[in-house]
């Protein structure tokens, strides 16, 4: 029997019981739509988290003093970071293409009658690259030329809060009574993953902060940028070696803590992976239930059509032909359900995305996988009823009323 004829016969059999076919198709539709929506939901939240983390700079490495505290008292042995460390890293490190200290002062930034409690961050020019900031207008200060200069670069939130949205370039911000001239503005970045506004920033050369604001040579944090994804571990090790070398460090414990953005991303994504897994599993169960629905319907169908099976066998159908006939029916049900389910799943994802503003990401993989699972469901759950049909004794089957 050629495949086309088989499919035609199967379609006719399915049309004969429209309601029943519809209900078993519905089971699969719900299952597949649920899988696709849930996966889209899981993937979406994972991606949005990742995007936020990436916006902070995927290759960023943070170096901090390894403060050992005993009973709340900072021990004497705590090593502090110095400007020389930055210079050493910049010169020697091969897996690093940017390094910047971060020294900050808290206070009020004042422009005319406006003021805002924005932190003043002392950085070097590399910081923009590390944290994925971009200059929108004006220029970034230069580490050498603007060493200790009273200049700053401001984020969009600062422009809004202090300058009423007007172009601030050339204007002056007063910070702790020191005037800082705005020479550049930053493109908007949006809020970070921990809630802080990444646009509410005032950047100034680190030497300016260290000399004019806090009179210290200690640096609390250094940010560095590894040359690419996958180099974080090597870069970390290299930085640590450079820092130890400068100090002729021999103690077994590391003087500094170095952690990478990649590690952070991994921690966060592993949590959201778990979430998507749970969602997908729940949706998968509904697909399974849909499959059992097909199996049930196929068993009913085989029993109901016992006489037809007997007749087909009497006029020369082999067990194989009967098996194929019923298998194709169940595959058709699941394929139909799968196709509609994919459509509804995608539509539902889009609706959730636009109405509930939930980050959704429909993955092609999940579409293909659930379609594949559908075919497998059709074969798997159709197999036993079809085999039952194919093994009927034609004499008994013909006698069946």
């Amino acid at each position, binding site marked *: 029997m050629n495949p086309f004829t088989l499919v035609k016969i199967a379609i006719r059999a399915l049309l004969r019981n429209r309601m029943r076919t519809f209900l078993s198709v519905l089971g699969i539709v719900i299952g597949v739509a649920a899988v696709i929506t849930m996966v889209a939901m899981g993937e979406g939240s994972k991606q949005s988290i990742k995007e936020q983390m990436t916006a902070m700079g995927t290759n960023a490495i943070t170096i901090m003093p390894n403060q050992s505290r005993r009973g709340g008292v900072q021990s004497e042995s705590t090593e502090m970071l110095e400007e020389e460390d930055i210079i050493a890293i910049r010169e020697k490190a091969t897996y690093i293409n940017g390094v910047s200290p971060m020294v900050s002062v808290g206070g009020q930034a004042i422009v005319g009658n406006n003021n805002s409690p924005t932190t003043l961050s002392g950085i070097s020019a590399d910081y923009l690259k590390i944290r994925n900031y971009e200059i929108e207008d004006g220029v970034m200060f230069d580490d050498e030329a603007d060493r200790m200069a009273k200049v700053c670069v401001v984020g969009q939130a600062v422009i809004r809060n202090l300058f009423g949205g007007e172009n601030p370039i050339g204007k002056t911000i007063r910070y702790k009574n020191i005037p800082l001239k705005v020479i550049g503005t930053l493109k908007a970045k949006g809020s970070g993953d921990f809630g802080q506004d990444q646009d509410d920033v005032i950047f100034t050369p680190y030497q300016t902060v260290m000399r004019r604001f806090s009179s210290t040579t200690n640096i609390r944090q250094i940010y560095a940028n590894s040359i690419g994804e996958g180099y974080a571990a090597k870069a970390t090790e290299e930085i640590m070696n450079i820092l130890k070398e400068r100090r002729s460090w021999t103690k077994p414990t590391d003087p500094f803590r170095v952690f990478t953005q990649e590690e952070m991303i991994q921690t966060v994504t592993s949590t959201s992976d778990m979430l998507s897994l749970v969602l997908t599993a729940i949706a998968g169960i509904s697909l399974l239930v849909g499959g059992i629905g097909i199996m049930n319907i196929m068993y009913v169908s085989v029993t109901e059509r016992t006489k*037809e099976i007997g007749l087909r*066998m009497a*006029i*020369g159908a082999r067990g194989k032909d009967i098996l194929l006939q019923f298998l194709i029916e169940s595959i058709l049900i699941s394929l139909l359900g799968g196709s509609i389910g994919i459509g509804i799943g995608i539509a539902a994802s889009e609706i959730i995305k636009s109405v509930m503003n939930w980050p959704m990401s429909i993955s092609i993989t999940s579409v293909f996988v659930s379609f594949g699972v559908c075919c497998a469901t059709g074969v798997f759950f159709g197999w036993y009823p079809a085999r039952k049909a194919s093994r009927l004794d034609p004499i008994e089957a013909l006698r069946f009323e």
Partner: protein
Amino acid sequence: MQTDTPILSIQNLRRDFKMGNETVHALRGVSFDIYNGEFVTIMGTSGSGKSTMLNILGCMDRPTSGHYILDGEHTETLKRDALAKIRRQKIGFVFQSYNLLSRTTAIENVELPLLYNPSISAAERHHRAIEALKRVGLEGRMNHLPNQLSGGQQQRVAIARALVNDPVIILADEATGNLDTRTSYEIMMIFQELNRQGKTIAFVTHEPDIATFSSRTITLRDGLVKKDVINENVQDAKEAFEALPPPETFDEE
């Protein structure tokens, strides 16, 4: 009309059924030959073994022992699929309850046996189904569904279905059992006509008057051949039909 080699030959055929601890001997050693062009009725009361006989002749069941040679082929050792192939190629069935597929047109019902033969194209299938329907006089109702046809017409579709694969033998199982006398005779007219055209027919029945239309009657009793007689005086179904009192007519006006 008879040739030297039988189209169908059974030798010392036995069929036992296990019912729990008991063994029921449905057939206890039956032998007979059917030659090409014969119209044989197989008679017997219920329990005589005629259904078992028909199932074996139809290659739907295998004998416990003995031989069954159909069209030169030993069937007693064949597997399920090989038996299905024989049914597809050599046998045409006509059942008491027609067994047409519902919601399937007459012509599609007739095409059905050919669907399982991959060497026959859709066009040829269609052509042969039309020819078969013509032979039973239903060319005007090819696209009717079974529920739009009378019992006699349904049975004629079933006969066309049995003819369509050009079988070496047509096996009919109480093919007139569900029909009134007039329609029965009409059906017998078709069988006689087919037989005249050369078809070999084995017709299982328990109605003696049906047997009078055949050329030979084998009577089974308790699993054995009780009688096997050539019918010297074959009745013509057409004459018998015409001799029937006219059907009650209803004044439609």
